[in-house]
């Protein structure tokens, strides 16, 4: 039985937004990344899973129970961080978390609010309206993780957090899955997902483009590299590399797009005196495009 099972779910809006025939499942013990640009339908999917909105077609089950009918029992074992987090501004962090804990009946065991607050360096005594965006996000994260839920759904969890905190959240996710929980993690940033997720689904304009293991995604990731050397690198040396394409080259400066492993390009560059080397983050849009090109090629092949 999957922790989350989304089965041919569609939700259409008059504006044209929404999701179309999305199917995916999240298993116990894994972090499942849900990746896509803003507005692609990630939050719509998550709010469908949370039964805040209802699908036009398809079925959604959590822990084997249909979310509409079995929602209450399911939510006893679930932690959720909304993408657009809104808290009771007039309360302190501690009061808000106590209130939510009291609504959760029998979730006294597992990670406590105090432990989590200490770990995330959050002062529970301060009124929420005085907290920074990052500290508000911590309140949201604590309520999602408190009591060790079996299913954890996080919509853009690290927004507003500094890199150190982001790492702390990733290790929280890892610890939870090691204990058997399932984490459904939505994000628009590939590097955030690829560092923690086991599998990734990519959504674009409301449709799932692909679901695959993170390793496969890495091999498709395109990075842009800019390099400055003391002597020009002959263009043919770069063009000959598998997975590399020369974007621009002028004198001692070259810009190259690399798909997959960086190993070969580093070995070529090692033969020159490198003054400067900048490798960009893998470009999500490029991955989408590569999927689209694959699809187009397949369609062309079939025809």
């Amino acid at each position: 039985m999957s922790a989350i099972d989304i089965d041919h779910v569609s939700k259409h809006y008059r504006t044209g937004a929404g999701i179309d025939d999305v199917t995916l499942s999240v298993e116990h013990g894994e972090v499942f990344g849900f990746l896509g640009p803003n507005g692609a339908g990630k939050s719509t999917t998550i709010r469908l899973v949370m039964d805040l909105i209802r699908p036009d077609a398809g079925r959604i089950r959590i822990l084997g129970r249909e979310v509409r009918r079995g929602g209450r029992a399911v939510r006893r074992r679930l932690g959720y961080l909304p993408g657009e987090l809104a808290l009771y501004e007039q309360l302190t962090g501690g009061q808000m978390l106590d209130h939510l804990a009291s609504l959760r009946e029998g979730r006294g065991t597992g990670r406590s609010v105090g432990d989590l607050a200490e770990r995330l360096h959050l002062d529970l005594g301060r009124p929420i309206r005085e907290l920074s965006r990052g500290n508000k996000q911590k309140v949201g994260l604590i309520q999602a993780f408190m009591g060790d839920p079996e299913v954890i759904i996080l919509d853009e969890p690290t927004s507003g957090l500094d890199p150190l905190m982001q790492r702390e959240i990733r290790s929280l996710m890892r610890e939870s899955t090691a204990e058997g929980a399932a984490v459904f993690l939505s994000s628009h940033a590939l590097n955030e997902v690829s560092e923690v997720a086991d599998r990734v689904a990519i959504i674009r304009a409301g449709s799932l483009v692909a679901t695959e293991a993170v390793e496969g995604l890495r091999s498709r990731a395109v990075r842009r590299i800019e390099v400055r050397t003391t002597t020009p690198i002959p263009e043919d040396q770069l063009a000959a590399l598998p997975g590399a394409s020369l974007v621009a080259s002028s004198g001692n400066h070259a810009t190259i797009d690399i798909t997959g492993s960086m190993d070969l390009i580093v070995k070529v560059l090692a033969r020159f005196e490198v003054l400067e080397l900048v490798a960009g983050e893998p470009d999500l849009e490029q991955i989408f495009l590569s999927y689209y090109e694959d699809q187009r090629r397949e369609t062309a092949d079939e025809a």
Partner: protein
Amino acid sequence: MFGRSLHDERRALIGWSIGLAATIVLELALYPTVRDNDMSALLDSYPESVKQLFGLTDFATGTGYVRAELFSFVLPLMVVVFGVLWGSDAVAGEEDRGTIDLLLANPISRRRVVGEKAAAVVAGLGLVSTVMAAALVLASSAFSADVPVARLGAASLMAFALAAVFAILGLALGAATGKRGLARGVGAALAISAYLLSALGPLASWLEPWRVASPWYHALGVDPLGHGVPVGHLALLVLSAGVLTVGAAEAFDRRDLGI
């Protein structure tokens, strides 16, 4: 959630209680002056419609004065306004501010959210109405208006029931649409139209049969200050509030939230 909702409104509860008590004390403090000056000549000079609209019938007795000055319009209006403001915010406010996502991530049903919010609003109105009744009893005896305590209680109870109906109406509009402003505006407009229907009904024969559609008629049009609690009418108001609560829960349960 019930306790939280009441706690969050504690300042409003205290504020409205003070406002009501102050209004009551000020009005009744004027009573001895009004009683000792013959106002009937002044009253006769008003057109019948004005007298009907503002309930200006009898200033000579304490009961007549309290009915005309307080229960014809001012006090019920204050409680109704408080009820509509709070009711329209109770569910729709959570949705408007986006806190409903976190609330419903807990093992509670949407119906229970509506139920507890409605209960909190009604309980809060009950508190405010109790303060109102207490202020009436104290001020009536302090300024020797000598209105029977039971009658003051009866009129306060009916004003409370009236406010509860419109508060739940505001809550239901908010729960059904998710729009706080719309719930507040439509709720207030309906409350005022219902008042006009009840107050002006006796003036126009074509309007008269429609008075029974107005909660104001059932609450105060039947004069609880003069005759005590009208049990049948009270039951009708309670039933209306109940039906509206169920409707609100049903509508809220079916909707897509927070779009």
